[in-house]
């Protein structure tokens, strides 16, 4: 599904800093992968490159066999629309549009039939538990609700890859839990391959696998067994191991 080969990213502004020093990673169809690591480890850079909003200095990324380096500007917008769904820490909703319109936006850009759009938005909003809020505007709803709206927008076009950058970073623990359960549900029911970047071990424990990055290199990875609680403890151990090494 996703193949990353020897990915490097060098920032040349001011002092040369190598954010990614050669990352190799494969993600299978339907997998739910978490990326963790201390601040400045390069995890967000990695996600930005996968999501095509940043470009690598060298190395290849293949999504469903499509090499992102060899994609034209025109193909890129279609690719983003059809294959990628993105969720951000700060939601990034359009304030001038209602919740409903925000969710529908990717379908509108795809020039879908109005009836189709309405049906799809209605069914998704039910799954997300925001069907009551459809006519409200982003500034009238809570953070958790805004993030669920953003998730709705990210998955309405049934993308093959859902990318989430600290989706719980701006939420309280109750909302964080709701949002993570939702992402997990979508991953299971729709088989949407999902990559999550997070600081939060609780959020990471929803994944099947967590990859740790340090100083721009893959450091380690752990897999979930049967219990989420056990996985959570493993993640905590791993993180404390990091801290001790410092």
């Amino acid at each position, binding site marked *: 599904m996703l193949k990353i080969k020897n990915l490097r990213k060098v920032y040349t502004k001011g002092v040369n800093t190598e954010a990614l020093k050669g990352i190799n990673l494969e993600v299978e169809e339907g997998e739910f992968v978490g990326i963790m690591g201390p601040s400045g480890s390069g995890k967000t850079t990695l996600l930005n490159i996968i999501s095509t909003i940043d470009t690598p200095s060298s190395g290849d990324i293949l999504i469903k066999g499509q090499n992102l380096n060899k994609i034209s500007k025109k193909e890129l917008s*279609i690719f983003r629309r059809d294959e990628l769904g993105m969720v*951000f820490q700060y939601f990034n909703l*359009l304030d001038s549009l209602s919740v409903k*319109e925000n969710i529908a936006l*990717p379908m509108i*850009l795809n020039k879908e039939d109005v009836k189709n759009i309405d049906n799809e938005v209605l069914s998704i909003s039910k799954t997300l538990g925001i069907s009551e809020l459809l006519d409200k505007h982003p500034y009238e709803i809570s953070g958790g609700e805004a993030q669920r709206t953003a998730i709705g927008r990210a998955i309405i076009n049934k993308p093959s890859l859902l990318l989430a950058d600290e989706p719980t970073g701006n939420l309280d623990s109750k909302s964080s839990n709701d949002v993570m359960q939702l992402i997990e549900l979508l991953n299971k029911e729709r088989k949407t391959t999902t990559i999550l970047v997070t600081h939060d071990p609780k959020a990471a424990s929803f994944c099947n696998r967590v990859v740790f990055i340090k100083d721009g290199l893959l450091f380690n990875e752990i897999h979930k067994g049967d219990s989420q609680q056990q996985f959570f403890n493993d993640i905590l151990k791993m993180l404390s191991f990091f801290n001790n090494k410092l």
Partner: protein
Amino acid sequence: MNLLNIGIKNIKGNLSSYITFFLATSFSVMIFFIFAMLIYHPQVINGVMKSSFRQGAIGVEIVIFTFLAFFVSYTLITYARKRSRDYAILQILGISSKQFMFLYLFENFVIFFSSIITGILLGLLFSKLFFIIIAYIIKDTVLDMYFPYKPIIITSLSFISVFIIVALISGLSMRFIKIINILKSNRKSQKTPKYNIIKIILGVLLIAVGYYLAYTATPKNLVQIFFPVLIMVIIGTYFFYDQSFIFFINTLKRNKKLYYKGINSLWISDLAHRLKDCTWVLFFSTIVIAIGLTAFSSIYSINYNARENLENNQEYSIVITSLDKFSKESVIDLKYLLDKKNVKYEYTNINAIVSKEFPNSVYIEKNKYLKSEINDKDDSIRNCNEKYILINNIKEPNITNSYKRIYTKLGKTYRNTPIYIVDKKEYTRLMRNMNRVQYHIFSYEDITLGAKDLTDINDQYYSKYKKHYLFHSKGVQYYRYTSQFNYILFLSFFVGIIFLICSGSMLYFKFFNHIEYDIDKFQNIVKIGLSKNEIRNTIRIQMAILFFLPIGFALSHSLFAMKALGNTAQFNIFTPVFIVIIGYLILQILYYFVINNRYTLHLISKIKF
């Protein structure tokens, strides 16, 4: 639901931030349109007023358009940038280039087009007022209203073409902005601006040398030094904003006693960032204001000195020369007018002869001249034995006889027709082939009295008697001079106001673009105890510095420029320049208060206390 709906919703949703863009564009369109209405007015085209009047208006229209086009482009780009986050999100969602351009052009065009319509409507509304002011200034009748279809077309087309060019370029460039930079910019912290000591010294040197050259300018070298000085001062000004000011702020920061006192640290620390952000706007306004002020002051100075020159020169107030039968009528008219205006005048006349028509030579008999009241109280003419005495400074008088030149007051009044004083014998000889004319001479103190009516009488008789009639009047000269200069003065004042409003608005946009950053910053400091008043004062000080820095700098530039002009033209400049500057400052202060209030209100309403 389609892209069009999204566009409409976006406009509605962002109405509050688009309102300034809308107002700025409407204002620009209105100004341009009113001038176009003047230029294409049937009465103006058909020459009720002089052609120089229309040319003046066209010149101003071109200057205004250049400036407004820049201003409107700047506003458009600023407001598009304000929405770059929205555009970045759309790109992440996979909007295609075509869709993006459609949305971008649609949104901006709707705003732009409604401002064009509003501007034209406002223009129609205010044009009558404008015509009344113009009529008052040039002391002529008020122009009628008319349906200005040509100005409407020209205004719309000019601004739409500006829009198309700027919107296309900015829209396309928006496509290439890196999304990642926009999304990151929320959290970006600013680096402290740095300065380069060599550039500072260079800047100060350039300005100093420029000022020195201007101060010591002579009529001979003015043309040679003009462009070098201009370029030196322009570059020096840029370095000042870009470098010296940051140096100055850093010096302030080092003075801990001052820096830690009250809110000083708050506004000083932020000022360098603001300044760095506004460098181009400040630089641009300084140059524009300096040019405007200099042009305005020099016109004003010439006008200011005109009346004085007119009053002090050695001429009669009114002199009429005409065939006897023609002149009687006008003399009656004149006396009647002067009596009506309560002018205390002295009147005298003298006979003369002229060959056929003016401006051929005029001859006066010596004895009659000596006996008349126009005889200057010295004996140079009495003692002169030359047959022909030329009393004015015509360069090449067309006579074969030898002559002597002695200037008299009458000669100084009439400069275009050679006037000779000849003895009785010669006079009688010449008389046979010539027409008898009469000089009517009026003298009085205040030449401004009845100037307009005098001008009317003058025009009336000229068109009636053509080359058989000569009329000289200081009042008419004064009237023509002032109405023309008032007109130019008004035009340049008008342009000055536009410069002022536009450069102030650009600064305001800069502030407004950073309002989110300001809200965040003050919100954080409010948490550790900052009062509403302290926020107000911080903004007040910062805005005042940014607002009055260009004007102060421009003042100093134009003072030196005026000094250079004064050196060469040798007239009194300081009084008129002072008047202009005070007027300009008052306007700027008013504008500052309006904008400062608007911004502070907006800012404070967004902060929780």
